[in-house]
């Protein structure tokens, strides 16, 4: 049965693989189905959460506090030093904001993927497989939590603040365009990493922590200027896990600073392409994971 070519539920974002003709039509249809499924399942989870209103309010509040204090730490640091790694406060806020917003978006939409290991272990993934809907969309929306809006809001606030404070930047149309593109592509790259992490849970049941080190860890890394980290680490982030494309490279271009670790300057515009490739890879890994689940059972 290994030659099976069945259409597995693949990321809706994999639709970007650039297939022509009937293949593209299928991807578009699948994308629509996935989006519909995602909305339905997420809606059910929101209703579920709302049955415990005060608990929801509390978690939303605490989630916002946690991320807010994160930023307070940076504020405190700047109270004592002029800048970090040669970057001024506004520049760090800009970096922090782009990475934070990207991550917030990804966490809100696909953060639930890290719960999937439990679904695999207790076998409740089976009930998802029985529905006439793409599996990835169901899993991504499983446990959808509005409290994650806290993280996104915080990222956005810092981003806007950073943009308002930036004064040394000469804005060109290209730079203006690059900011939203960076945020969206960054979110997509984070999502792809999360999908890969979820897929790993088909084989390794406790892979969630490894994924977290890439997603949460990556987010923390990107919030600081690359100049403060060792060159080897920066290279790893650029070439091994393409997280640098999330915010560093495009943001550094916007700030008019050289790219770190000898990365060519055109790399600042490579985010969309990198995001596409990441999605394609994530789709393939996910597909392999589902296939292995279905041939071994829980």
């Amino acid at each position: 049965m290994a030659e099976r070519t069945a259409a597995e539920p693949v990321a809706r974002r994999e639709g970007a693989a650039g297939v022509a003709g009937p293949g593209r039509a299928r991807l578009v249809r699948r994308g629509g189905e996935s989006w519909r499924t995602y909305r339905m399942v997420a809606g059910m989870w929101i209703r579920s959460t709302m049955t415990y209103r005060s608990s929801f309010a509390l978690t939303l509040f605490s989630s916002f506090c946690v991320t807010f204090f994160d930023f307070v730490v940076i504020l405190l640091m700047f109270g004592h030093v002029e800048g970090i790694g040669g970057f001024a406060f506004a520049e760090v806020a800009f970096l922090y904001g782009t990475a934070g917003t990207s991550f917030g978006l990804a966490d809100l939409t696909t953060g639930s993927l890290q719960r999937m290991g439990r679904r695999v272990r207790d076998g409740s993934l089976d009930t998802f497989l029985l529905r006439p809907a793409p599996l990835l969309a169901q899993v991504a929306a499983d446990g959808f939590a509005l409290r994650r809006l806290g993280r996104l809001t915080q990222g956005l606030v810092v981003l806007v603040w950073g943009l308002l404070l930036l004064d040394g930047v000469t804005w060109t149309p290209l730079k203006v365009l690059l900011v939203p593109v960076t945020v969206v592509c960054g979110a997509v790259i984070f999502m792809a990493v999360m999908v890969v992490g979820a897929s790993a849970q088909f084989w390794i049941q406790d892979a969630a922590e490894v994924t977290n080190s890439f997603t949460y860890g990556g987010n923390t890394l990107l919030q600081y200027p690359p100049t403060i980290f060792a060159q080897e680490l920066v290279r790893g982030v650029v070439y091994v896990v393409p997280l640098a494309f999330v915010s560093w490279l495009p943001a550094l271009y916007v700030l008019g600073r050289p790219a770190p670790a000898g990365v060519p300057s055109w790399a600042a515009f490579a985010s969309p392409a990198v995001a596409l490739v990441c999605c394609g890879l994530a789709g393939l890994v996910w597909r392999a994971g589902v296939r292995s689940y279905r041939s071994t059972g829980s």
Partner: protein
Amino acid sequence: MPFIELDALEKAFTVRRRAGLLRREKREVRAVDGITFGVERGEMVGYIGPNGAGKSTTIKMLTGILTPSGGRLRVAGIDPARERTRLARRIGVVFGQRTTLWWDLPLRDSYRLVHRMYQVPDARFRENLDRCVELLELGDLLDVPVRQLSLGQRMRGDIAAALLHDPDVLYLDEPTIGLDIVSRTRVRSFLRELNADRGTTVLLTTHDLTDIEQLCSRVMVIDHGRLMYDGDLTGLHESGGGERLLVVDLATAMPPIEDVPGARFVRAEGPRQWLAFPATSSAAPLVAAVAAAYPLVDLSVREPDIETVIAKMYGGTREERRESLT
């Protein structure tokens, strides 16, 4: 062509077992080992066997959750592993031990999700829901959060959820497990009506032989991944040489009843005596004979359970057979 068709279906798992401090042993377990059968549209079939016989694995392959490692499989002309989501619209599944309902939400909300996810036409959905609500007596439960339902209520809710999209086939995995007698009866009569009215094909696994007796015209026994028996229930008793037990309560303690033709004395405990008789023969003449000769106060008939029938069928207990196989 049968509606459900299995041809030499196989499923092997590789099990890794710790065989020492660091050493790991790989072993192949054949959960389903070459099963062939066909089920026609509108049949109601019992699929029984001891724990670990391969029942659930078969069901999972029939629904497309698992991919077979060998053989051929078709449900409604669809290969489940290849076209799982297409098949999903045509089948309904109830796992007795796992609910598909939304824990914190009213039953109604779970049904609304089915409505939208399966894209059931509005009129059709309303008709199906009304019917299920009426027959499964769910009227008062629709607005109750699922977490507050009893096991029996939730099971009925689950069965309804599996039927709102008009499936051609319904798979039930232990649908009466843990239910009290009233809920059991209600579930059974609902399934019988569903099969009669809609012609829904039903495949159910169970440990309760009464489920089979009251619902299924055909029963399949599976053990160690192989199909051991396929036929009607009477035939199963015959081939198993099964015996039923007549338990009689007499007015006083009496010497063993050994003079009734067709019955074999098993044991006595005060005024209560146990008589065995072939599962294929009727209990009525036996009861009449006992009543004529003895002061009969009360009586009951015990069906042999599946474990016993299967054990008798192949000689020895399950453990003994397992030993002989390995």
